[in-house]
């Protein structure tokens, strides 16, 4: 039952005002700036170029490279996070021995600063002094160029993303698994369904709504990736691991090309919206079939 009391405005307005102020100001500001040719260095007075910034961005190979890199990182990392996370959650839910002990350890990575995690990763991936190199040397693979070769560097960033964010999926999936009804499984056991059949027939479909939400959150968050890359490779070698946010940072904060950067951030916003809407549209028929 919803009440109606004038005091409701006192409750809701502080939050609405703060969010409005911090989101609408920058939005209007960068929307209008994105149609200008506006640089701070050298200081030229702003000039209206309409879609000029957008056009030159769309012809810029570095922009497409950043989109491709970000997409690769986001999709591969989230895909693997989901598979590992769901697996571990299933095992924990089934009371694997020692499960209590694992819980704190499994929760830890997602609460740590990505910057610090990236620094630790740099040490571990060091090609001569790192422990990973020592381990691989035993298999005859010494001094792999982990962070100095484009493909390896991308793989390392993905690995760090997986390390840090799988706990989030484990946490959410575990909470979801614990709300599943017991009686369906009892019925399945009477029918002599194997564990494999039970998973694909019951657990997976029933977990689909939660899975959809969790993957959505992680996907959107992964597109914003910046700090891990900033510390681990700085976007290098060359621009091989440069993500969208990092590209925008380089253009805006190093070159102070304001109009261009604003246009870039708007294209980023459009891209995220397209991905989000497509994802939800693809997921919807599967969710509705369940009801």
């Amino acid at each position, binding site marked *: 039952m919803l009440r109606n009391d004038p005091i409701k405005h006192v409750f809701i307005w502080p939050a609405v005002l703060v969010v409005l102020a*911090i989101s609408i*100001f920058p939005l209007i500001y960068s929307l209008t700036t994105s149609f200008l040719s506006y640089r701070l260095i050298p200081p030229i007075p702003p000039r209206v170029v309409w879609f000029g910034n957008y056009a030159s961005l769309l012809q810029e190979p570095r922009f497409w490279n950043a989109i491709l890199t970000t997409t690769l990182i986001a999709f591969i990392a989230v895909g693997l996070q989901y598979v590992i996370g769901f697996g571990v959650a299933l095992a924990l839910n089934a009371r694997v021995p020692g499960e209590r002990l694992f819980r704190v*350890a499994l929760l830890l990575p997602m609460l740590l600063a990505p*910057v610090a995690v990236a620094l630790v990763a740099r040490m571990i991936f060091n090609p001569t002094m790192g422990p990973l190199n020592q381990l691989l040397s035993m298999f005859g693979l010494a001094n792999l160029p982990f962070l100095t070769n484009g493909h390896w560097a991308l793989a390392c960033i993905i690995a760090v993303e997986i390390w840090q964010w799988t706990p989030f999926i484990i946490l959410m999936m575990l909470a979801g698994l614990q709300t599943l009804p017991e009686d369906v499984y009892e019925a399945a056991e009477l029918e002599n369904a194997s*564990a494999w059949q039970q998973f694909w027939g019951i657990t997976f479909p029933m977990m689909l709504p939660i899975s959809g939400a969790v993957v959505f959150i992680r996907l959107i968050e992964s*597109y914003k990736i910046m*700090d891990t890359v900033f510390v681990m490779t700085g976007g290098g070698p060359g621009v091989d691991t440069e993500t969208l946010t990092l590209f925008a940072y380089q253009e805006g904060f190093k070159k102070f090309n304001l109009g261009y950067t604003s246009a870039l951030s708007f294209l980023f*916003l459009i891209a995220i*919206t397209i991905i989000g809407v497509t994802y939800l549209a693809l997921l919807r028929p599967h969710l509705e079939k369940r009801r």
Partner: protein
Amino acid sequence: MSRRGLTGLSSWNRRLVAVGVFAWCLITTFPLYWVVVTAFKTPPGVVGGPTYIPFVDFTPTLEPFIDLYQGVRGEFFRTFLNSTIVGLSAAAIATAIGAMAAYALVRFEFKVRFGAGLIFFLLALGAYLLFNNTLGFTRPQALLLAFPIALVAAIIANRLPLPGPILGNEDILFWFVSQRMFPPIVTAFALYLLYSEIGRLGFQLVDSYLGLTLCYVAFSLPIVVWLMRDFFEAIPIEVEEAAMVDNVPSWRIFLGIVVPMSMNGLLATFMITLAFVWNEFLFALFLTNSRWQTLPILVAGQNSQRGDEWWAISAAALVAIVPMMIMAGLLSRMMRSGLLLGAIK
């Protein structure tokens, strides 16, 4: 609550599953172990190749931490203090006003006309352009003038019978949560420019406590509203109805009944928000440069300044990590009591 044994699996498979989980646990904890031991190493202990066990492989030393404390590698002590002050105050403010908004969305009815929202955006944009281009105000001045005009107009428009859909509580919640979808770079960059132009008018926001905290509050609010709504929905309404019969005013119901009943939820939300602010990098990178620098910025800087001095880098990373490790312990204790389950429905 279903807690299923691994039925249908042979004991051999059971063991396989346990080994898999254990392996993942090892992968999770090894880097943490590594950073802890490295922080106590001497330079020869690092450069000579990987060493693992203190007292056996290498002799531990407190040197890196003493360096940190004495400020050899940047002002760690003050930066730690900055992070703590900004983190605690932003998390507290965000939790307070976010919880109020969440409660309002759960218990009161709101109606916003879509037309009014549209009028707000168009008027804000139009007034800004008018003030800035035609009337010659500076950009921040134009924005500050356009905002109240658009807001007042939208509130009046909301009372008129405009055509178009009427948005309810669910839509307002969606609007809050969708703010989190925004790529932060859009806001961070524009906010930096805006702050520095306001600074030129004589009110410093870049590299100030107020500017940073305000921005963090705004960016934590979506999560706070989302989490707290679930906690409030779980509270039985009968208690509040009983109080309403006795004519207790709403704000006293909220402070006296609802807040104490959802203390655990508030605490968990506060800690999650604190972790988010503590670890945040992008906004701090744009909005601070010296006085109010936070830990992530200083820690990231260690890398470029000090090449391969891992003992120092580890100690720095550890300073940023340890408070969150303690919080993970606290949070997982709350998790065991089934607290966070409500948050994902």
